């Protein structure tokens, strides 16, 4: 079942095409990453899904509904522009936001206590929001988003401003939510996070979809494999071998990219007799590399036009 369906959606602000004919859909229970550099159109896309910005053209259906108002209690949204009532106490803010999602007094309080404990904020329960650090406020927002047990979770840059420990904590929570069956969309420009969390990704730049699919699809489609070898012995093979496209030396090891159509296995075979290998590893390209390559490629294309 498709939870989110976005068809040919475009949005223009003045002369700027913020989102240009983007389509994608998300299956129930999947984690979907919207990736892209700053200003690529990630937040605009998400705001259109949330019906905060009305698209100029195209169609968006959430859980089969085009009118979000009917189902907004099933959606948890962490906006990029986020803040809380500074003068309110932590517990009161959460109760209020819970009530807005239709949670009721006692059960809401149980949930709040559970989450405050889980995210190590219990001792701040009676404090005013303004007394909390930025990171703590961020965690508070995440609690408010996840606490009502939404079926669809939309997180715009959820790791922004978090230290590595808290980032990990949020990643764990996202994975737990996934296990619960929640469909999750999040936007980020942190590629490692996306690589580890997402079932599917979409990379956008300048309002356009550049690539999309499962992480492994994207990798096999857009990145070539490369090989890392740590060795002792004569390194002349690097220039002699017919199947090596190019290489980079890193002191302790070299990184090799093979010519198209060649198998790492055959390289290994040819090397065994020539050098002493301490490590031979076939590396998948990281999303980070694909991201940089694609975005730069786009930009060069743009310059050529």
């Amino acid at each position, binding site marked *: 079942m498709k939870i989110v369906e976005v068809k040919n959606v475009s949005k223009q602000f003045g002369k700027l095409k913020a989102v240009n004919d983007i389509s994608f859909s998300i299956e129930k229970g999947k984690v979907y990453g919207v990736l892209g550099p700053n200003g690529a159109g990630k937040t605009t896309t998400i705001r259109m899904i949330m019906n905060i910005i009305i698209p100029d053209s195209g169609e968006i259906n959430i859980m089969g509904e085009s009118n979000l108002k009917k189902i907004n209690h099933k959606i948890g949204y962490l906006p990029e522009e*986020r803040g809380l009532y500074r003068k309110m106490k932590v517990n009161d803010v959460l109760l209020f936001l819970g*009530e807005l999602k239709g949670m009721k007094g006692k059960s809401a309080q149980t949930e709040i206590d559970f989450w405050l404990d889980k995210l190590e904020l219990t001792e701040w329960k009676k404090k005013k929001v303004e007394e909390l650090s930025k990171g703590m406020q961020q965690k508070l927002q995440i609690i408010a988003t996840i606490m009502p047990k939404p079926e669809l979770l939309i997180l715009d840059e959820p790791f922004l401003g978090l230290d590595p420990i808290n980032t990990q904590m949020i990643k764990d929570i996202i994975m737990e939510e996934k296990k619960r069956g929640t469909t999750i969309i999040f936007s980020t420009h942190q590629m490692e996070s996306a690589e580890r969390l997402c079932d599917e990704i979409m990379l956008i730049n300048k309002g356009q979809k550049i690539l999309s699919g499962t992480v492994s699809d994207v990798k096999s489609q857009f990145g070539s494999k490369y090989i890392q070898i740590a060795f002792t012995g004569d390194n002349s093979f690097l220039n002699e071998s017919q199947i090596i496209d190019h290489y980079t030396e890193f002191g302790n090891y070299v990184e090799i990219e093979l010519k198209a159509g060649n198998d790492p296995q055959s390289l290994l075979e040819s090397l065994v007799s020539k050098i002493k290998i301490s490590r031979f590893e076939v590396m998948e390209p990281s999303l980070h590399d694909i991201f940089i390559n694609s975005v730069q490629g786009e930009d060069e294309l743009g310059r050529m036009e």
Partner: protein
Amino acid sequence: MNIKTLAVVKREFLTRVKTKGFIIGTLLLPVIFALLFGGVFIFGALFQPKGQDITIIDQTGRIYGEFTTLQNGTLKNGEPRFRWSEFELGDATLEDTKVELSAKVLSKELDAYIVIPSDIIESKVIAFFARNVSDMEGIHSFRRSFSTIISNIRLAEKGYPADEIRSEMAQGRVNLETIQVTEKGDIGKNSVSNFILTYLLCYILMLFIMSYGQMVTRSVIEEKSQRITETIISSIKPIELMMGKLIGICMVGITQLLVIAGFILAFSLYGDDLLMKAGVEAPKLLDIIRSINFTPVLFFYFIVFFLFGYLIYGAIFAAIGAMVNTEDEGQQFLTPVMMLNMLSFFVMFSVAKNPDTTAALWVSLIPFFTPVVMFARISALDPVLPSGAFISIFTTGLFLYGLLWMVAKIYRVGILMYGKKPSLKEALKWIKY
């Protein structure tokens, strides 16, 4: 009202009512009003004058005795208010004596001296020399005493019996009782106290409409500037949020009004006892307080017109809040609207004096003026309802409906707009979205 709107109402109400500022303010407000209202008298009682040494140069030689008998008041502690002494000129000239006495006044040996010229009967001018010549009450009382004495002398010179004339005049003094003729019968009413009540209530009304309207602006701007809006809007429709805000803040106002109404009621019931005990001797004030007639019906209309005023101005203020990013930016739009509200207060002054004229009726039907002006007419004519009272409730209700519809549209677009503040023209375009 749905549960989400109710949650907003609850939040807006509780976060405000629970603050120390609100509790102190609400309790302090009646005290401030009491000080404004009876302050002059209470302070008058607190700051008792001290006994004064005054010398009189009586060049006629026949006024000193009578004057000091008339001015024989005592202070609270039983000591005389004035310690009189007569200065005999003897051989000294008046000019020299005045220099001498002025020096004594300056060195605080004396508080004042009075020169009664020998031709006083004709000239009718007496000079009062003192360090402090701003004790209006004291000077007024001296003038009265001198006038009595001089007119008595003049009457006697013409052969009229002064005492007899005076007592006749005193007996001939008349009181004008004001009685309002109404369909419910004739009602005795003190026009001064009625005007004071109308004035006071209208002042509170205007003040509350203004300050609670501004509270709406602040509340909207807070959500905008703290970037809370998107979080909230993902759960609730903008119009529900706006209505929840308007209702919640309104309830704070009504809570505060109930406290103040209770105070005014208590003051009109027990005020004179209280002031008597405090030792205020101002019979006029006590009369006014005694005849304040703050009825539950009047209070009901007060609440109705507070609601109207608050909703009209609060809705406009909400739209302004949604248009701007900071309170400073909002000021530029707020000022003209607040002037409109103040204007209704000034219009009220003339309307309250002539509440039953055609002009008063028309002015009170202008929606922006209706709350204060129509209420002023109701209060001034109480217990009779002025013409157009029900019509005004109907027209204002209709106006409000249209206004809220328009404001909701501006609000919906505005709260999600960041960056440059729009011109009024652009904001009005949002209505079409």
